[in-house]
């Protein structure tokens, strides 16, 4: 369960979120939409504790993330998988190594790494490209590697901030379908996007933001906001 309770976030001189309240159950799929600067990325950063709310609370699984110590934040993040708009893959390293990178840092055994990485690459449909480097992959394929990396540790929540922002419409749809597929396996999935078409098509819960406030929260919504 993720819960924002009267949460506000202000940067030096600008209010990014203003008294935001919402609740997300485990296993949900939620889109965050809204014009540029609406506060979508801010919400995600608050959830994985890259930022701390200036007032109000952010609860993840009943834990007030603002109260976590520097030592506990990594533990929180190990239960999440984060997908980046610009993929953030390591250049010159194979898909396998990219997905294995964090597991190695966590001290997972080689046999276990092999099992989990191949499993994750299978889920994203890249099992035949384990040895390809990012330079040899299309944008959509690179993002699949990014998603494989996000799910390889079996996270409870996958957070994707504009995962299709750098992709063409076809690849975008594929990536969204992949996220939906991951959601069907029980993982909570949070996606921010500007892609109206896909949002309208997928009929998921849509939280629409504008100027740091929630303007609508519809269970099987479409994207009504005009940007």
């Amino acid at each position, binding site marked *: 369960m993720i819960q924002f309770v009267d949460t506000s976030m202000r940067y030096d001189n600008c209010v990014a979120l203003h008294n935001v309240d919402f609740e997300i159950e485990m296993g949900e799929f939620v889109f965050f939409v809204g014009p540029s600067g609406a506060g979508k990325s801010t919400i995600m950063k608050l959830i994985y504790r890259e930022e701390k709310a200036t007032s109000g609370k952010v609860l993840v699984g009943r834990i007030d993330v603002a109260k976590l110590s520097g030592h506990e934040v990594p533990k929180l993040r190990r239960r999440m998988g984060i997908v980046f708009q610009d993929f953030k893959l390591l250049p010159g390293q194979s898909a396998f190594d990219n997905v294995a*990178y964090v597991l190695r840092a*966590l001290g997972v055994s080689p046999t276990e790494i092999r099992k989990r990485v191949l499993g994750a690459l299978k889920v994203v449909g890249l099992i035949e490209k384990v040895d390809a480097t990012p330079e040899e992959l299309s944008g959509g394929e690179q993002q699949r590697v990014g998603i494989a990396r996000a799910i390889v540790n079996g996270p409870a929540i996958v957070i994707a901030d504009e995962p299709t922002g750098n992709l063409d419409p076809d690849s975008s749809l594929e990536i969204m379908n992949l996220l939906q597929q991951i959601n069907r396996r029980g993982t909570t999935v949070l996606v921010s996007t500007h892609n109206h078409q896909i949002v309208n098509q997928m009929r998921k819960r849509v939280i629409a933001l504008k100027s740091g406030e929630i303007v609508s929260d519809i269970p099987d919504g479409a994207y009504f906001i005009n940007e």
Partner: protein
Amino acid sequence: MSDLVGSLTTELRITGRIFRETGMGLKRTGLMNIIIVVIMASILSIFGALLAVIIEMGVLVQNLGSEVEISVYIKDEANTQQVRDEIMKLPHIKKLTLISKEKAWAEMQKEYPLPDVENPLPDTIHMQMTSEKHILTTVEKLKSLPGVETLQYPKEVLDKISKITQGASIVGMSVSFILAMLTMFIINNTIHLLIQNKRREIEILRMMGVGNWYIRLPFLLQGALYGVVSALVACGAVYFAVEFLNQVFITFQLQTNESTSNIVYIILVLMGLLVGGGGAAIAVRKYLQV
């Protein structure tokens, strides 16, 4: 039990990865590694040599000081034995001899043809201290003793020696401090560049919940490694310098202290660790938010 073994092997694997990351950092730093070690080793060698000289001078001064003789002239009306017993109670005395005025006079008469006048000499105590640093305090105490008429010791020589040692220490330490700052600055910059270079890895590790120390340690280890390697090179340089010094000293019938080099080696390695690790730590603190 198997849980314990499991977590132990996990820790071991993580440690192995940290060393690997350190190795990769060194590889990325390339030629700069050598430049840093050369600069740092040179600086540490200078520091080590200065330190050896300062320590040696200290030893020399102490030896000289323990040769310095204080002559205490005792009042005619005082009880010489009593005064001597009182002086014997003072600490750090190496040697004390009492020369009675009769004996002194007899010897003087033997050497010089003196007229037969009444003995003008006082009873005298000659004493040596264990170290130069006890001379002045002892002199002060002696002056306040009632039976002491006056005393004599090579004041100017001692003053000069202590001024030279002090001067050398201050100059040496300030030069070393400036050089240490310079080294720290270079290492700080190198690690800063490396952190920028590894920005993507760092971000991935952070976002995926890898511990802060795993991310920081390779940089700190790299800095510390520069320090240790440079210090070892500098130890070699100091070793040869001391050997050379010994050759020179033999002609003056002097000898360097063996423990001096050992102290210098230990201090060099500690300094290397401090400056290398410190420079890296400053960069990590400043440029690596985890």
